[in-house]
């Protein structure tokens, strides 16, 4: 099976001296889904920001066979879609349709094709009724769906979801899980929620102080690191 992500010896130090990543080796196969567990500040989000070159540390990163470098950055960002934890940071355009079309326009699609693709994806995530609405008028669940649509509109091979169910009520959370389970892309899910991890992924990686402290089946990792609320 081909590798969607292959990382070796990734290290990163913030300008204030904090060593956030300390030699990470990680892989993700095409079509596979994996959860990143770990305490707050353990390096999960810093790691995610390296996957599409938003942060650049030491070590080697390959996305869909492409080594991450200045020359491949645009290509890599079209292959890996990141859904950020706070949807307000991801929805910056004045209307839902324009926001979802933002990525395809950047990929070089014509305005007509970008808008067509945006409409198709919004229909897929159940937000076709909100094309002309302003993102700040949407509920938290709707914002999350539109944020996912914005990423799916770029037709990525890998989806990175940073705490996808934060702030969502149980019914909205359930709907979102159904939507995410139906997406064929390989997924990297960053979460503290063991139930979400079990619902979406089979493998888990546990981060601790910028290192991978354990890796394996989700249930095994949850038990090994006592990663349940009760």
């Amino acid at each position: 099976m081909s590798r969607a992500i292959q990382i070796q010896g990734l290290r990163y130090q913030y300008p204030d001296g904090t060593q956030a990543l300390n030699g990470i080796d990680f892989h993700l196969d095409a079509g596979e889904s994996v959860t990143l567990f770990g305490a707050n500040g353990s390096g999960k989000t810093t790691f995610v920001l390296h996957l599409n070159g938003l942060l650049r540390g030491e070590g080697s990163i390959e996305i869909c066979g492409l080594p991450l470098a200045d020359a491949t950055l645009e290509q890599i960002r079209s292959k890996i879609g990141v859904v950020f934890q706070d949807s307000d940071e991801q929805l910056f355009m004045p209307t839902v349709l324009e926001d979802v079309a933002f990525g395809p326009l950047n990929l070089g699609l014509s305005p007509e094709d970008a808008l067509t693709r945006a409409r198709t994806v919004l229909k897929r995530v159940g937000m076709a009724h909100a094309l002309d609405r302003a993102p700040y008028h949407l509920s938290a669940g709707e914002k999350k769906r539109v944020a996912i649509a914005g990423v799916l509109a770029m037709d990525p091979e890998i989806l990175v979801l940073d705490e996808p169910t934060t702030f969502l009520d149980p019914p909205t959370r359930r709907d979102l899980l159904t939507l995410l389970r139906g997406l064929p892309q390989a997924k990297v899910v960053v979460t503290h929620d063991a139930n979400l991890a079990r619902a979406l992924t089979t493998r888990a990686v546990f981060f601790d102080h910028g290192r991978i402290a354990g890796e394996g089946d989700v249930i095994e990792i949850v038990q090994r690191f006592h990663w349940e609320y009760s």
Partner: protein
Amino acid sequence: MHHLVIDRWSRGTSSLHQRDPRAKLAALLVFLVVLSTTRPAAQWAFAAYAVLLAIAANSARLPILGLAGRAALVLPFSATFALLTWWSGDSMRALALAEKSFLSGMAALLLVGTTPLTGWTAALESWRVPRMLILVIQFVYRYLFVIAEQAQRMRWAALCRGRGSFRLAAGLVGVLFARSWQRADGIYHAMLARGFRGRFVPAAPAPLRASDALFFSACLAGCVGIRILL
């Protein structure tokens, strides 16, 4: 919040709402030029401009008092200069200064109250207004809500732990500034993740219709007619 009200107004369906934003922006510019060059002694002309704006607001089904109340927010700023002029002995010029600033505010509000943000910023863009300025307008409009809500939550949290004070307000402003900076950083990351390369790719503007040209001609004739005749 003013922002919400104007946003709701701008989504109306009146014939004024349906006019092309470029025609409305051109009409606003004509009105402002004519208004600013009207002699202070031509008080009937100011009354006629006000009637013109009231007719436009009525045809757009906007509340005239609500519009006037919001336009009056400019008065404290112009009142300083009007008072100085009054004290220097030119009471007519002082009155005209206040009238001009109020009517200018009212006309600008009429534009944003009948045109969604996307419409009038696209019109500015078609007039080759610097893209950076348009981006700043769009981002300020988009994130005013988010920052205002954040400020409100911080204020409540602070008040829950004590009563308000100048020291508290100063602290909140400082923290809000830092959080706004963090949010700006997050938004920029989200934009890069979706292929942003330093410029927004615009959608193609629709051609101007005959009805828009007619609307602009009527505005031009009305404003210039008042200016010459009264």
